């Protein structure tokens, strides 16, 4: 089996494990729900418990599919060479999530103009705005921040945070 197939299989199983853990936590919490009045069998925990059981079943089917795909893949790999050219990477999405989390954390404190300008600048950098100088990138960040300020605050009258968080 090629390295890309192994990685794909590992990712599929990790996702299944994640969903399995989530479902188990959900089921454990569902079993602890205490109804305010008796509804018989179908109380507040009925649908969550049923959904959990069906989820286990569905995850089982997906797991079976992963195993079958892996077998088929390894048979195909033995006949053909791996030609995947790694056109994907998780590094940039992780960075995007990081800067987005920072943006959200700073949004109210630093205010819309500064936080959005920095966020857009960071995204332009991460999305590799090529053939563009530093000055032009700053200009794009200012324009995008300004355009959406006008859209939300001026046209749609939304109160956006300015610099309140930084003021004493």
């Amino acid at each position, binding site marked *: 089996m090629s390295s890309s197939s192994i990685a794909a299989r590992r*990712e599929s199983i990790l*996702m299944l494990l994640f*969903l399995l853990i*989530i479902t188990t936590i*959900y089921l454990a*919490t*569902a079993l602890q*729900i*205490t*109804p*305010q009045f008796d*509804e*018989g*069998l*179908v*109380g*507040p925990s*009925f*649908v*969550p418990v049923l*959904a*959990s059981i*069906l*989820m286990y079943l*569905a995850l089982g*089917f*997906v797991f079976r599919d992963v195993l079958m795909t892996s077998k088929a893949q390894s048979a195909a790999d033995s006949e053909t060479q791996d030609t995947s050219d790694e*056109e*994907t*990477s998780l590094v*940039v*999405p992780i960075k*995007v*999530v990081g800067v*987005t*989390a920072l*943006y*959200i*954390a700073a*949004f*109210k404190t630093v205010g*819309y103009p500064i936080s*959005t300008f920095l*966020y*857009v600048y960071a*995204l*332009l950098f991460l*999305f590799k*705005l090529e053939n563009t100088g530093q000055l032009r990138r700053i200009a*794009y960040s200012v324009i*995008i*921040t300004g*355009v*959406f300020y006008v*859209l*939300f605050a001026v046209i*749609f009258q*939304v*109160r*956006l945070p300015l610099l309140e968080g930084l003021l004493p």
Partner: protein
Amino acid sequence: MNFIVEILGGFSALASPEVLAYMIVGFLIGTFFGSVPGLTSVLAIALLLPITYSLDVVPALVMCASIFMSGMYAGSITATTINIPGAPSSMMTSIEGYALMKQGYGANALGHAALGSMIGGVVGALLLIALTPVAAKVSLLIQTPGKFSLILFAMVVIVISQRDAIAKGMVATLLGIMIATIGIDVMQPIARFNFGTEALVEGIDMMPLIIGTFAISEILYQAYQRRDPLAIDVDTRKLAPIRRRDFLPPLREIREIGVFTYLKSALIGYFIGVLPGAGGSMAAFVSYAEAMRKSKKPQEYGKGSREGIAAAETANNSMCGGAFVPMLMFGIPGDPTTAIVLGVLVINGLQPGPRLLDTQLDLIAPMFASLLISALILIPLTLFLLGPYFVKIVSIRKALLYSCIAVVALVGSYVATYSPFQMMLALVFGVLAFFLRKQNYPTVTLLLGFILGPDLEQYLRRSLSLNDGNPLTFVTSPDSLFFLVLTAIFFYFMVIRVPKTPKA
């Protein structure tokens, strides 16, 4: 009579400059999002959702309808010009359209796509207007057990529509149902799954889920793909230029395709639209396959068949009208776009159901009118005005585009409650949807599970409470039995006896 007057009133509402402006802006937004590969009309409406907080309901719905119609049509633009379908529903169009483009008939292919979209959109909107009162009367006959079975039918169809990923579709749907159970119980005043935090007591709002699932996950997905989906092949740029005078398809070609093909495709599209979860892709695919089966020139398919373009585009635009029927009458969205439109209705305090036509038809009628006018006037007008520039329009830089989408999505999430918590929720759902999508789990079913889950639970528990916990009520109630039998029939034909895939 009153219904007709209200519908005509809907058309007169479009005469208001403000509403007309929203319809045109919506159409242009839909055309842009529909034509740019990687963006969809679903994403456009998802980004619009927070803005609807600041809009009146009529312009918001009018804008949604025009985005829906134009987004469905615009997918054919890049499908024809650069062989990348702007939307999944234009997959069939790319096979035939790009073949014609390479032969120097790109403008002609775009003309046929626009004509098909126009006919399909108009027929779909007219059927919607004509059949909505009938659907409203039928929906009044459905009682609580029947409502449960109807939603169950919808959910089963949504899952089995994911032809190659039924198990994954089921996982995503159940995940949606599980997320929907967070917060106050549907029957009793107790909080579930809030894990001791006050922020989750009221449950998860639809908006961060929609923004996260469709906008944030798209940004992450594009960041994940190193290749720029908007980058246009150098060879494509060298193809014959698109000229306005070639847009109008010759009458001879339209006669060859035939009125019957257009009408049949429109009907196929409309009724597929009525089915929950089926959507434009299935409408285009089934209609294309049917047109190929009955064609006098099947040998042209795959090499530039105008009939194939007409069938696919007529069906996917006709689907728009059909998808509104279950959403408006039962609160069951026919596809992801109508799922978000349902969110717009709920935000504005409108409850789907037969009473919507009695009490708030004046708010809904302009949306019907917008669907019709968008198809009849705006599709050909946009092609004529913007047609020669389509390739340039879709060449926008990825970095600028996704930065703008990120700002609209996150600030839009903030708008609902003025709380960064909603923004963080959108990010969390975005990350979840990104990983689900990466593993080929259909995220659309997650949203539909989230929307339909609470009703499913409520009708199930009510039915059983009213019948002393006796589950036989679902079989003894005729309306419920009808939907259960329908579910079994669909399951048989779509899962057990799988239809053969036609060769494209």
